[in-house]
């Protein structure tokens, strides 16, 4: 079970009537994602302030190419859609379809990470070269960490939705919904990051 486990509050047999309570694990996750988003907001604010007040020193190199990150943006947007497909399939009790869509989503995540590494190795600057280089690696690296964690979680739930004996079904959707929400969040952060780092 996850640490976001709910209490058994009100969930006892009282006078023979079974009471239940609303599932607020998703609410807790949304609150956590707001907090996580604030971390990114802090990084973005730092980067934009550097842009505004700290000039690039003479001779320092900070140039970014657009093709790979554009491809990555498309990959992540597609992966959000495929994840949505997976969740729809599970809701319609098609566990095998759901598993296929999840594996496809994970594959897109892995391709994203490979492309990101490829970009890292081909950039003309390294982590400690200058302020903007450092901020670039910190921001994309922190986001990449989120994608890595997300991909791992997708692989785990893709194992759990298997039709013979998996934990997840249309009756127990929460883990899938939680990872889906997280994945959309990571996706959204990437779009903001893409605009701020590459387009501005």
């Amino acid at each position, binding site marked *: 079970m996850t640490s976001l486990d*709910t209490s058994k*509050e009100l969930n006892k047999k009282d006078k023979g009537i079974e009471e239940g309570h609303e599932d607020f694990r998703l609410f807790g996750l949304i*609150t956590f994602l707001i*907090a996580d*988003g604030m971390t990114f907001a802090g990084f973005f604010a730092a980067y934009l302030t*550097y842009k505004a007040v700290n000039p690039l020193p003479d001779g320092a190199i900070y140039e970014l190419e657009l093709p790979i990150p554009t491809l990555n943006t498309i990959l992540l947007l597609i992966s959000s859609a495929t994840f949505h497909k997976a969740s729809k399939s599970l809701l319609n009790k098609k566990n095998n379809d759901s598993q296929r869509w999840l594996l496809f989503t994970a594959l897109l995540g892995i391709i994203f990470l490979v492309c990101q590494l490829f970009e890292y190795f081909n950039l003309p600057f390294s*982590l*400690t070269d200058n302020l903007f280089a*450092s901020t670039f690696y*910190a921001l994309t690296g922190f986001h990449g960490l989120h994608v890595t964690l997300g991909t791992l979680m997708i692989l785990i739930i893709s194992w759990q939705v298997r039709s013979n004996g998996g934990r997840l079904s249309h009756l127990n959707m929460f883990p899938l919904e939680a990872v889906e929400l997280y994945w959309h969040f990571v996706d959204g952060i990437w779009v903001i990051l893409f605009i701020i780092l590459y387009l501005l």
Partner: protein
Amino acid sequence: MTISIEPENKKQESIQPKGWLKYFSFSLDHKVIGIQYLICGFVFYLVGGTLASAIRIELASPMSDFMPRDVYNQVLTLHGTIMIFLWIVPVVNGAFGNYLIPFYVGARDMAFPRLNAVAFWLIPPSGLMLIFSYFIDGAAQAGWTAYPPLSITTPQSGQIIWILSVLLLGGSSIFGGINFIATILKLRRPGLKLMQLPMYCWAMLGTSILVVLSTPVLAGTLILLSFDIVANTGFFNPVLGGNVVVYQHLFWFYSHPAVYIMVLPAFGLVSEILPIHCRKPLFGYSTMVFSIMGIVVLGLVVWAHHMFTSGTPPWMRLFFTIATAFIAVPTGIKFFNWVATMWGGRISINSAILFSCGFIINFVFGGITGVALAQVPFDIHVHDTYFVVAHFHYIVYGGSVFVIFSSIYHWFPKVTGKLLNEKLGILHFVITFVGFNLCFAPQHWLGLNGMPRRVAEYDPQFQFVNQISSVGALLMAISTIPFLVNIFISIAKGKKAGDNPWNALTPEWLTSSPPPVENWEGEAPLVKEPYGYGESITN
């Protein structure tokens, strides 16, 4: 969608140790976790207090003769960090929040009991890590603010351990905040409206919003700072083209709200204690709620008043001065409401109400110096002097710590079923109040006359006033003795308190003392008027 989960608590109860041992075990019960927070916080308070005593012994003479100067820096850094992150924040939020919030919303536990236990168990290891960094290669020396470039140039290992420790404590704080928001908004007993909740719930809701919005920014900042230290990047290192002011902005974006994270729950606790001991309804309930939310919103946009000497442009100074002055309005409303609550009430003089009154007096003083410090010309004059030290100790000690003691006196009968000794309690209050004011009031004078903070050596003309301050610190150290004696004697052979010794109406008093594992034997009571005291009810 509804879910059914197995009864975790009951299942746990059978395998849990009984008696005091349960406070040293992994428990999911919100009451046990609350007391764990309190005990853990108090142990760290004693450590931080010992460090404070060491600082005051050093400052009793103008030369640095009690300890080397770099040790002095480590001691003051540890003192600040321990008192903020390991004593006040965990205790006013974690301890009382965990104990009281489920009662107040009519629940049997917090929304996420396991997350709650995780949040607590992050604290002891990170606290020990912080303290033991002293024995590795020296603790951090850059103060609790860890401003670069100082934090980059001082010895690395201590600073890195400090960062890791604060990151863990920040994580604990965020988990706690998520839990409180979910509990207050989602776990309310059916039929209980938000505007019928006791005031502490509102205070914790506001505090948790601040925690969730601002703590992650500090975490991100400290990660960048650790890169500067270990990976030789230059985010905040001017030598490598970095920008130290960006660190200050990001740091204070958390650390100013942190002040409200420390005092808003204290405001809530006082709002619970005063009506019960004055036998009157809380004055101005809705204005209290709106002023808490006003403080939350304004508290997020005043951070740069800590940075008036950091080359802030004039428009920024203007904005942050005005915003800071505005925050005095909701705070003032709360103080008028408390005084109005006491006005004409049948006040019983006991330790709980004495500490609450002490809080009101001290906090008004600290609040006034706070408004003064928000004015740019004055702030530039006293920036980084003992005036600032006096100001924030009036807020965090005179404010939060007085309320913590008041709350311990108030809720001790509920937690243990025993009454505390009132004579020892009043003795504790008198020594604390006199010692505190003797220690910190003279520091205003020191600051106005130009004595800088964070130094082990000072101009000999300040010696006499510093010695008065040290005597006050000695009294504060002594004041913990009657308190601890009182606690241990009362637990062992205190008078039986009964379920509701204060004749209170808030839900936690409507169950047995100490409460059973699931808070109520039967159904949770529906308390729509937690402050319905008045002539008809005085018994």
